[in-house]
């Protein structure tokens, strides 16, 4: 019988040891043990927004300089007079007008024709692939953001390192690295009618777990109680957005506000994630106004409010939108669009190489289309995600984050300024 030699190295407050050989609870116990007391406030943060339902990239970042766009969409194209022009060819949907100042100050970029190498048009499969980071492989157990956390241990020092807003941890953050699902910052913790009762319950459970918990129950409960303590100091119910930022009403606005709050509180958020739904516009999608316009307005106003609220902090923040695929170039018989292939993603923040629509644009010509109908994918989403991990978060090794794929810097679209 051989016993693996495990070496615990303590250096600069970090605990490192051979991940993969050790039971997870040991790994997490080591995370907990090596927690440094200082929390640098200028660490990079990545905020990911998943537009579930497949956003119509062509009406989000509109190729208004292409006559084909108008011919294929007689009823739902955004009229050129309404488009917020960006570069003479592309423009923003008018509902995203709030983002134009960010484009002008070069902190907003769009990546067009980005998507999956897998041809599926199933929301279910495509979301799964975009979150697992392994297109075409269904059995991948964890998500790529979690795998990044597993392999980059430097930041593993706070329960708020990776936070998803919502009742459950999304697939993208599923995996062995600790991540937090928070439905509502104000409600995170133990519930009791009065504060005194809440404090008492908290102390009681803390005492129970400190003494009797074994394995992962011990380290995770410790993280939980610590997070509660930190939140209590933050006093989330008293939060006021800065610089007159006004978040849109609804779930997205609330998630973004809470993300800003966590980032400003310097609790060590490196990755924040939120969902935004309602993009599956098969029927009456609308043009300058309508269903999609309303969703885009919420998105644009929300992102603009986040940037405003974070102010100087945006220097270290990148916000990335993503969606499982795009929609058909041609409108359908119900004044909507059906499931397509490539879509557009937005990147926003200080480190972003802004003021540009990035990625190779394949155009709308029928012979350039994917399967004769959809915008072709010219940027594999893994190359975009990998670039952000490497150049923004400083990931050293991308191979374990995207198994079976070797992200290649030569294929990076240049979304992060170098």
């Amino acid at each position, binding site marked *: 019988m051989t016993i693996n030699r*495990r070496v615990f190295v303590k250096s600069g407050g970090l605990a490192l040891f051979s991940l993969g050989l050790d039971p997870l609870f040991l790994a997490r116990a080591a995370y907990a043990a090596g927690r440094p007391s200082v929390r640098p406030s200028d660490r990079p943060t990545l905020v990911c927004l998943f537009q579930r339902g497949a956003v119509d990239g062509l009406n989000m970042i509109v190729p208004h300089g292409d006559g084909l766009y108008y011919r294929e969409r007689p009823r739902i194209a955004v009229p050129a007079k309404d488009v917020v022009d960006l570069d003479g060819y592309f423009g923003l949907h008018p509902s995203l007008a709030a983002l134009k100042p960010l484009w002008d100050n070069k902190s907003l970029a769009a990546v067009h024709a980005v998507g999956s190498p897998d041809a599926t048009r199933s929301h279910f499969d495509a979301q799964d692939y975009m979150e697992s980071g392994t297109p075409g492989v269904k059995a991948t157990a964890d998500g790529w953001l979690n795998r990044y956390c597993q392999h980059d241990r430097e930041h593993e020092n706070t329960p708020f390192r990776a936070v998803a807003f919502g009742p459950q941890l999304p697939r993208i953050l599923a995996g062995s690295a600790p991540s937090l699902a928070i439905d509502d910052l104000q409600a995170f913790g133990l519930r009791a009618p009065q504060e005194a009762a809440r404090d008492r319950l908290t102390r009681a459970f803390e005492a129970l777990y400190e003494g009797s918990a074994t394995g992962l129950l011990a380290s995770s409960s410790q993280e939980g109680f610590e997070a509660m303590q930190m939140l209590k100091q933050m006093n989330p119910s008293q939060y006021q957005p800065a610089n007159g930022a006004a978040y849109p009403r609804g779930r997205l606005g609330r998630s973004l506000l809470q993300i800003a709050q966590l980032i400003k509180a310097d609790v060590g958020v490196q990755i924040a994630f939120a969902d935004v739904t309602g993009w599956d516009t098969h029927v009456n999608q609308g043009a300058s106004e309508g269903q999609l316009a309303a969703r885009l307005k919420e998105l644009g106003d929300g992102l603009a409010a986040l940037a405003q609220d974070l102010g100087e902090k945006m220097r270290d923040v990148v916000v990335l939108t993503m969606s499982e695929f795009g929609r058909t170039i041609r409108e359908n*018989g119900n004044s909507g669009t059906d499931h397509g292939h490539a879509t557009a993603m937005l990147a926003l923040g200080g480190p972003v190489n802004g003021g540009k629509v990035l990625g190779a644009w394949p155009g709308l010509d029928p012979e350039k289309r994917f399967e004769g109908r959809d915008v072709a994918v010219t940027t594999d989403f893994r190359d975009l995600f990998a670039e952000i991990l490497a150049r923004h978060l400083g990931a050293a090794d991308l191979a374990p984050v995207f198994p079976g794929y070797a992200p290649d810097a030569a294929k990076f679209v240049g979304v992060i300024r170098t």
Partner: protein
Amino acid sequence: MISYLLLAVLLQGAGAPSPRALTPRDSAYHVLNRLAYGPRPGDLDSVARLGVMRWIDLQLDPRHIDNPFLAERERQFPFLGLSRDDLARLYLQAQRARQERLRADSMSRAATDAADQTPEALRARRIAGQFQELAVVRAVLSQRQLEEVMVDFWTNHFNVFFGKGADRFLTPSYIEATIRPNALGKFADLLIATAQSPAMLFYLDNAESVAPGSVPPQLARLQARTQFGLSPRRRIFLDPMGPMRADSLRQRALLRMPKGLNENYARELMELHTLGVDGGYTQQDVINVARIFTGWSLERPQQGAGFVFNDWAHDYGAKTVVGVTFPAGHGMDEGLRLLKLLASEHATMHHVSKQLCARFVADDPPDGCVDDAVAAWHRSGGDIREVLRAIFHGPDFWAPQNVDTKLKTPLEFVVSAVRAVGADPDTTPRLAQVVARLGEPLYQHVAPDGYPEREEDWVNSGALLARMNAAVALASGQLSGVTVNLDAVAPATADADQLIGAIDDKIFAGRLSPHTKQVIRDQVADVRDPEQARTLAIGLALGGPDFQRQ
């Protein structure tokens, strides 16, 4: 040296097995935790009295266990009376109502919301909620506890995702007609039933898998019509939907047309359902299995969405799978032959036995347990009851290091807590919502591997806090939809020792850790109100670390 010491300490902390031998009541506690969803008040004594091994035998043959209480409760779930046809019709109605609402007005966010609030949509959601709740209610109330545990096991082993399109109406019949009747039968029967179930065929896309180049008869007719039939102008004239709509429909029909092999089911069949990822099959095997299952599909929802074998879509060529030849010229029969072959492969026995041992014994099951199960599988020709019997009779199942050590899944935690306080759930979806909040929304696992069994998949700080909240809410009677009966555990009293004694005895079979008892004693010490003292003590006990394990 230091590192080995630290390791030893951590390892010991993880297991913390109790050194003492198991008393009859300890054994009853162990089997009620593993073969059932935890003891209800009184169960420990009755199982100990009956004899643990005899109780196990009874549970393995549930037909002889009367279940009148559950049967009566099931009658309060009206969706159980709906056939797949009925559910398909409701699903189509809800879809149609949504589209109509959106077509009428989609200018506002409110309209989108309204489209999700049509009476049809609400009805569909009500049925979905009932369906999830029923799983929890059965786990709480059924006398045939092992059967419920195995239904949960197979539901995850042969996972489908309720949220994927037609699986919204196919999943109920999948559970009722495919999984439940086979939960304690022969593995091969269960495997064949899942392979032919519309829910699985849709979920893993086999319904879409056709021999490359094959054309469905309807589309062949349509193509013939456009080639030789009406002029485009006349078609427009005749088409009441207008040219755009008709064009779009045709495009969609073309898009919907299956384009060739889909390997999803073939791959998961071998990787997850049978051989296991290291089961010795190749990518070429996956392709050939997919070819064998070409044509295994389902009818359109309008026709009832039943299983159908489409002759036109089948690949009649010769194939080889894991070294076995399937000669040319065979239709649906070769799929059945393949399933029987896979069910009897050694790799399958090993893979499934290992998962069963992981469920019943330890996250990383000892080899001996797996070997015993495989031997019983051989002996019995894949009789699940015999495989289970071998596991329950094996030394590993009873080894002290495997007792009180497995972390409860959210379903196990919620159901065992409800059972512990003698609670009675109604038919509202409240308990299923609690299970979902703790991270296990039933039938909603997206990936085909089903909900995991390992500790690290369930323990995170947010989920733990949610468990504590659920425990306190349950003990204080604040979970609507559940009537608790704390009297069955302990009388209302401010006497801390009496409370802790009763809780330890009734809920934990006397195995509550001294530390937990001490903390509860300290907490209850200054509570004068007997009701409050009891609520606090039970809430802490159920939300504390001891109750998270089984």
